[in-house]
């Protein structure tokens, strides 16, 4: 029965590169037909997990099985059942879209006719039919990623690995990619997805595993993780940087943890409990500081808060303060709510 068996089982996985320990005993399972989001900052070990599961690397200790096959001892059989989309769009830029897919189909040993018809189907599905006869060199970044995913799907793999499938894509291509991925899930493909974008995991993954420094630090559904962090977030924007410090001082005793200040956006975030009463108290205190409050509100913790609490640093430090991304994250529940859960 679907959902009852595990498509991926990983136990005590250890991988060292010289003196550096990339994975330090990772355990995880992915039920058949579900999506696992593997989250973590850069260098956490996400890609190493994917490389071991896709037979590119051998672990130093521990065990990993994909569709019941050992990734070391039965590597050849594992390869026949998986599709891999790495961090780079691994397409041959001199071949056309059609040629790329047919080549990969032949290498999956599909046979000439089958490779050709699968290639045509996938080009259609990923909206690349018009570009099918052009060398991939002429494709945009988003088109290359789509072609790359199409290539990994050509032999209808039971398990698909997507290693940061939207890194480097513009927001529109990213939304498009999410729709394609959500589609695959409805086909019953088991997916292990790594990402730095919490919004992406929130939208696509059934369950998540957060790793940092090669260890699992949290796991569960997005709601589990948010509940684990607990409380609410009081968020406000003030008129100036100088007011930001004053507001932080005034509200510090209300917060469960040190307030987070973002000077660029002049935004203050505090983990709190107590709901509306806390909000009222906060407003009263702010009034006495004389700070100009441009925006204030209570919200449930999002995955960025989860990340920050669990790892002590943001998922993607460069991104953490960017106003446009934060705005996008705020909008997610409204725009994407129906798509996944």
């Amino acid at each position: 029965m679907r959902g009852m068996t595990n498509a991926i089982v990983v136990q005590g996985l250890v991988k060292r590169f010289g003196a550096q320990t990339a994975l330090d005993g990772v355990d995880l399972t992915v039920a058949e037909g579900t999506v696992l989001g593997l989250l973590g900052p850069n260098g956490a070990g996400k890609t190493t997990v994917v490389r071991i599961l896709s037979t590119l690397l051998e672990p130093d200790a521990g065990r990993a099985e994909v569709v019941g096959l050992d990734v070391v001892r039965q590597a050849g059989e594992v390869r026949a059942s998986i599709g891999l989309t790495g961090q780079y769009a691994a397409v041959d830029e001199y071949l056309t879209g059609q040629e790329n897919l047919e080549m990969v189909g032949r290498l999956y040993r599909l046979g000439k006719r089958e490779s050709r018809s699968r290639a045509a189907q996938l080009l259609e599905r990923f909206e690349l039919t018009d570009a099918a006869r052009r060398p991939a060199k002429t494709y945009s970044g988003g088109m290359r990623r789509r072609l790359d995913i199409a290539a990994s799907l050509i032999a209808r793999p039971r398990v698909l690995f997507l290693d940061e499938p939207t890194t480097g894509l513009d927001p529109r291509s990213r939304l498009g990619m999410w729709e394609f991925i959500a589609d695959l899930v409805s086909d019953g493909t088991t997916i292990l997805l790594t990402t730095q974008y919490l919004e992406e995991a929130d939208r696509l993954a059934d369950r998540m595993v957060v790793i940092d420094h090669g260890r699992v630090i949290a796991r569960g559904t997005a709601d589990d993780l948010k509940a684990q962090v607990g409380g609410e977030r009081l968020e406000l924007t003030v008129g100036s940087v100088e007011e930001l410090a004053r507001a932080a001082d005034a509200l510090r005793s209300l917060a469960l943890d040190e307030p987070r200040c973002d000077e660029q956006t002049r935004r203050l975030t505090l983990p709190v409990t107590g709901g509306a009463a806390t909000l009222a108290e906060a407003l009263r205190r702010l009034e006495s500081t004389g700070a100009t409050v441009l925006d204030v509100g209570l919200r449930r913790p999002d995955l960025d808060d989860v990340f920050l609490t669990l790892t002590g640093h943001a998922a993607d430090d460069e991104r953490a303060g960017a106003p446009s991304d934060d705005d996008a994250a705020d909008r997610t529940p409204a725009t994407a709510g129906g798509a996944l859960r």
Partner: protein
Amino acid sequence: MSAMTTSLGWAVSDSLTITRRNLIKVKRVPDLIVFATLSPIMFVLLFRYVFGSAIPIEGLDYAEFLLPGIFAQTVVFGSTITGASLADDLQKGLIDRFRSLPMARSAVLIGRTVADLGLNVVTIVVMALTGLAVGWRIHSSVGEALAGFVVLLLFAFAISWVMAYVGLLVRTPEVVNNASFIVIFPLTFIANTFVPTNNFPTVLKVIADWNPVSAVVQAARQLFGNTAPSLETSDAWSLQHPVPYVLLWVVVLLAVFVPLSVRTYLRTATR
């Protein structure tokens, strides 16, 4: 038994798929075609008329002396494409993709070296035609002449496997190109390629005598009939028996670098 023939069948079919892929690139990248055809023509013409006007070869037209030498130099340089192309595939994540597919483990390297052999065949044909236009002639039988081309291409094929290893190790196409230039330039010049070695300083002459490139050139000269009784050949065994000496090199290079390259390929992943 049948499982073995099946897996061999797949290895051949996968290698052909990869060879086809590599040859499509040749078709679509004009630079490669220029490199493979125009530059050999230029070299033949330059050496024929620039060096040829200053280097007297006793009893032989310089074009006759030159062509086997320039064939050897060009195919050896042509083999460096193997290393640069594999490094490029590695950088672009294609090797990761291939390694995650249920294909034969040697196919990427076989497909690469075979495609580069094909490119070398094209190069040699173009050079031979240019040579014929500027006074080079074959004086032997068809069989011997074909054997001459086979010796050249076999040696180039073996060098391709060396370059495959270098490419997987070095991982950057530009570095592969520069590094191979530094090695291959002296390798093809400290030899009988463009001038007789009689007047080389002693140390250089010993190196030149035992340099496999010299033996390749000597073998080609003998098999094409581009020799003259008055032309002194070194007494070194390698040049007295150039064909077996070259074949020995080919066997040793392949025996070492085919397994070494395949092993490296299986452990290589994009960083």
